[in-house]
């Protein structure tokens, strides 16, 4: 049943969500695009929506996918799946707070996971760069001719522009507005 699928999919996302919104892009993408709920382009749209709405990417994705698949109840069910691991883990930790702080292996685990989350963010950059400038995600293993692609220079210009501009402390909302306006006008 779709409700169970939504719940269990976002339960998985919520259980492996490390490193903040951007790092979990590949995680959500695997969960949602691979099972056919969204195309990769639609997923990129969801990421864009998460930027122009308040709140983190994960909750935006859960709400959006849940709604699309099974209406408002679907959205609620997906959210519950996403939130449950946090509640369960927090409950455990609060009960055993004193011991938790001194567990050396926790630090070791996190030390291993931290570079992985950075790698995941870098992978997300590559994926979205492919999508916005090449219009598709490249499947290297399935497609031996992968190096045949055409670049959308307009999108590339926005990418490079923002890459440079973010050095100057511009209000992120203004930056986003100009990205959108530039896109609407010139792409």
């Amino acid at each position, binding site marked *: 049943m779709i409700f169970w699928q939504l719940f269990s999919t976002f339960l998985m996302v919520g259980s492996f969500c490390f490193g903040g919104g951007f790092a979990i892009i590949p995680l959500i993408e695997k969960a949602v695009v691979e099972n056919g709920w969204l195309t990769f382009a639609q997923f990129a749209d969801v990421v864009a929506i998460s930027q122009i709405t308040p709140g983190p990417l994960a909750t935006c994705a859960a709400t959006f996918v849940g709604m699309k698949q099974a209406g408002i109840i679907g959205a609620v069910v997906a959210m519950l799946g996403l939130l449950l691991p946090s509640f369960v883990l927090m409950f455990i930790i609060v009960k055993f707070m004193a011991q938790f702080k001194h567990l050396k292996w926790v630090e070791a685990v996190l030390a291993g996971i931290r570079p992985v989350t950075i790698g995941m963010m870098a992978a997300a950059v590559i994926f979205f760069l492919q999508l916005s400038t090449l219009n598709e995600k490249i499947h290297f293993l399935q497609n031996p001719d992968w190096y045949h692609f055409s670049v959308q220079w307009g999108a590339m210009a*926005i990418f490079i522009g923002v890459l440079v501009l973010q050095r100057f402390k511009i209000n992120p909302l203004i930056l986003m507005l100009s990205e959108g306006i530039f896109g609407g006008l010139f792409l």
Partner: protein
Amino acid sequence: MMKHKYWQLFLVFLKLGSFTFGGGYAMVSLMRRELVEVNTWMTDDEFTDCLAVSQSIPGVLAVNTSIYAGYRVAGSFGAMVAVLGCVLPSFLLVLVLAHFYGQMGQFPVIKKVFLGVTAGVTAIIAGAVVKLGKNAVKGSFGLCLCAITVVGMVVFEIHPIWLILGGALVGVWYSKQVKQ
């Protein structure tokens, strides 16, 4: 009396959930101001603890911190109230946008706007990778893990779960090596 506190807690997190764009970390500084300074519900030390624990467990950062802070302020029910306030604005807004998403196809300019935002967001993520990477990717150990992750994800399309579990195991293994 307690009801008043729950309502206050809800409103504070509703505010946090409505005004923070860009994810959990953006919400953290605003949360600190509200919880420690404006409402004096926590000390700075307690808030630092909150952040440390929230980052040490999986789960959406904004949700983790809301649960911890809500629990500290008003027990289990406080935790639920805080999370509800935090996710409600996003939930309602996205619900509406999702509903009209199908019809957006009639307005190709919206697709272009989204594409522009996507291209820009990609650049912002790239900036975050560099900024966070300086602290998070340390030495050849970190660099190796990071590189393997990128190649694994982009070329071999491995599921992130395996990479995260692998990273955790390697982290534990490495810490044992270092001790010897």
